[in-house]
């Protein structure tokens, strides 16, 4: 059990558990937080889970936790580790089941006054046109060859088939396609689960939102993204659906057997792993990348549906209903990257489980339009509260392997949230705040009530204060679509 007294405070926003806290730790664990968030995190098992990640072979410098940390399975949500190549591990459970769950931010040329009278129509049309909810299939019917194409080419498949523009792909992490994906490393069951689900949101905490820019903090970066007070934007939060869930399930099972072969002792069976250089590690990496590509394509198809829906509802009511891409980021992924560690350049595998890549200015992997301001970081808040647009910094490169937070972070179990809040009452309360809600399930809506989450503004103060991301703009919802 981790206690408050086990932490030493390194600076105003950094707390550390030394490596001698537990004999199996290989590195210290660092938690970016303020005093209140630290106290809150002691209330569940997330910090034990953080310590467990500090035991994994090849882990470098620190096991890291972002201020939105909460209890997950295996890794905490909000956890980051980097393992050194070639023999550091890769862990399917560390990436999680929803591989490349992520967020896309879409911009418009509209101010809120332009669409206020159309908002309810827009929410209804988005709910009707963008498939969401448990068991809901998409509009596409992919052949066996097409699902392989999606797995290996990601959003390029959408471009080839008329569901994307070149600018969409340019403004997507990895340009919407992670190199090295191999569809032959993905099971038939994963492909069968994925085939009917491309272009669907799913359920749980996934959503589409229409938001309005509330406040701008960095005028240059905001201007580059087309963000100004009153401007309408849209967010998509979803991942790789059954395709990714099955890839993880398959490899967590396989690794249960091989982990012993490599002599790795685990603090939790969900942390099963293998050296990245091993055949099993390489196979998982190729399959995970295929699932990541599925997710990039999935969000691209949904973006296309949103673009069409804005045109359908707003044509004739506004001058220009076009929806453009601002950026798309992953927040569940393992990526091979080069980072500087103790003065030397090292190839590492960065596991971000509920954490966002946040590369600073100058990174060659960023699209030219954002290269001098840093990578856009998209941090959705809880339903009905603010979300944030940030940019990566030199600080995130130096301190967190180019990573920062991914959301508000839960504090209350889904069960307790449902006992505390009724979905219908929540919908009415949000309507009184001017938020138009469409949801397939009222109990599901209740599980995602804002009361179940941390204060996202506090989380952002920590990452901004710690220098591992910088505030650009705060956005607030006007329409929410949930499965």
């Amino acid at each position: 059990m981790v206690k408050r007294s086990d932490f030493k405070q390194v600076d105003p926003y950094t707390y550390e558990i030394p490596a001698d806290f537990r004999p199996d730790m290989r590195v210290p664990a660092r938690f970016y937080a303020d005093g209140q968030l630290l106290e809150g995190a002691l209330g569940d098992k997330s910090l034990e889970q953080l310590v467990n990640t500090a035991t994994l072979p090849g882990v470098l410098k620190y096991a890291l936790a972002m201020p939105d940390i909460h209890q997950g399975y295996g890794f905490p949500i909000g956890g980051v580790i980097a393992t050194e190549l070639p023999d550091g591990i890769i862990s399917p459970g560390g990436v999680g089941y929803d591989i490349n769950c992520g967020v896309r931010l879409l911009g418009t040329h509209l101010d809120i006054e332009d669409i206020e009278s159309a908002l309810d129509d827009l929410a209804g049309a988005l709910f009707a046109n963008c498939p969401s909810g448990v068991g809901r299939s998409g509009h596409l019917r992919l052949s066996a060859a097409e699902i392989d194409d999606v797995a290996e080419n990601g959003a390029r498949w959408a471009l080839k088939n008329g569901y994307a523009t070149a600018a969409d792909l340019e403004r997507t992490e990895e340009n919407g396609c992670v190199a090295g994906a191999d569809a032959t490393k993905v099971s038939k069951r994963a492909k069968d689960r994925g085939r009917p689900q491309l272009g669907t949101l799913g359920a749980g905490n996934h959503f589409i939102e229409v938001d309005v820019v509330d406040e701008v903090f960095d005028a240059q970066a905001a201007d580059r993204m087309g963000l100004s007070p009153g401007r309408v934007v849209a967010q998509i939060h979803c991942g790789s659906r059954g395709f990714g869930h099955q890839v993880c399930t398959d490899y967590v099972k396989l690794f249960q057997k091989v982990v012993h072969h490599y002599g790795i002792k685990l603090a939790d069976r969900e942390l099963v792993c293998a050296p990245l250089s091993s055949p099993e590690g390489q196979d998982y990496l190729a399959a995970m990348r295929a699932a990541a590509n599925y997710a990039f394509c999935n969000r691209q198809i949904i973006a296309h549906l949103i673009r069409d829906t804005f045109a359908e509802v707003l044509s004739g009511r506004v001058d220009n209903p076009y929806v453009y891409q601002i950026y798309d980021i992953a927040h569940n992924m393992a990526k091979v990257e080069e980072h500087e560690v103790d003065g030397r350049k090292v190839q590492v595998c960065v596991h971000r489980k509920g954490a966002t890549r946040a590369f600073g200015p100058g990174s060659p992997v960023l699209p030219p339009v954002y290269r001098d301001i840093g990578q856009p970081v998209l941090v959705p808040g809880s339903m009905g509260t603010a979300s944030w647009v940030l940019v990566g910094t030199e600080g995130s490169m130096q301190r967190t392997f180019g990573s920062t937070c991914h959301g508000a972070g839960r504090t209350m179990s889904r069960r307790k949230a449902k006992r505390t809040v009724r979905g219908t009452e929540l919908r009415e309360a949000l309507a009184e705040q001017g938020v138009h809600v469409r949801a397939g399930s009222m109990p599901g809506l209740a599980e995602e009530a804002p009361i179940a989450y941390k204060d996202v503004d506090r989380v952002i103060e920590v990452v901004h204060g710690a220098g591992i991301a910088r505030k650009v703009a705060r956005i607030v919802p006007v329409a929410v679509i949930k499965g």
Partner: protein
Amino acid sequence: MEQRVDMNKLRSSPAGHSPPPYEIVEHTADWAVRVRGENFTVLLHNAAVAMNMLLVGPETVTGREEVRRLSLSAYDRESMLVEWLGELAYLAETEGLIFSEYHFDEVTPEQVRVTITGGPAPVLHKHIKAVTYHNLEVLETENGLETTIVFDV
């Protein structure tokens, strides 16, 4: 032909002395259930009933027109639990089917052969992305076996 499954009845033990066959455990982000059984076969049965509770709620009418035979392989009791529940969650996701009767022909930690009977669920309340190994351990207790299973939802 339909069968009404009252899963609330299954939650409490008849005599009121031994612990219930399953109970929901608080988990911040996902869903967890603690499951008990006098032996591994009963544990598998009760785990499936507990997962159905999450998927379709406490009182659901399910059909009996679907009969499937499953043959599952695993490495140990924990991985067999994941395999078993994962198979049922897969059938719920892909075909909208809920199975409430289980006839086990063979049960070992490495091999299970089972005939399951069920039908379409009117409404699926929850989507289970996966059954996890998080701290998964089948423990021996004075009443048999006990384990806690975390579902990614």
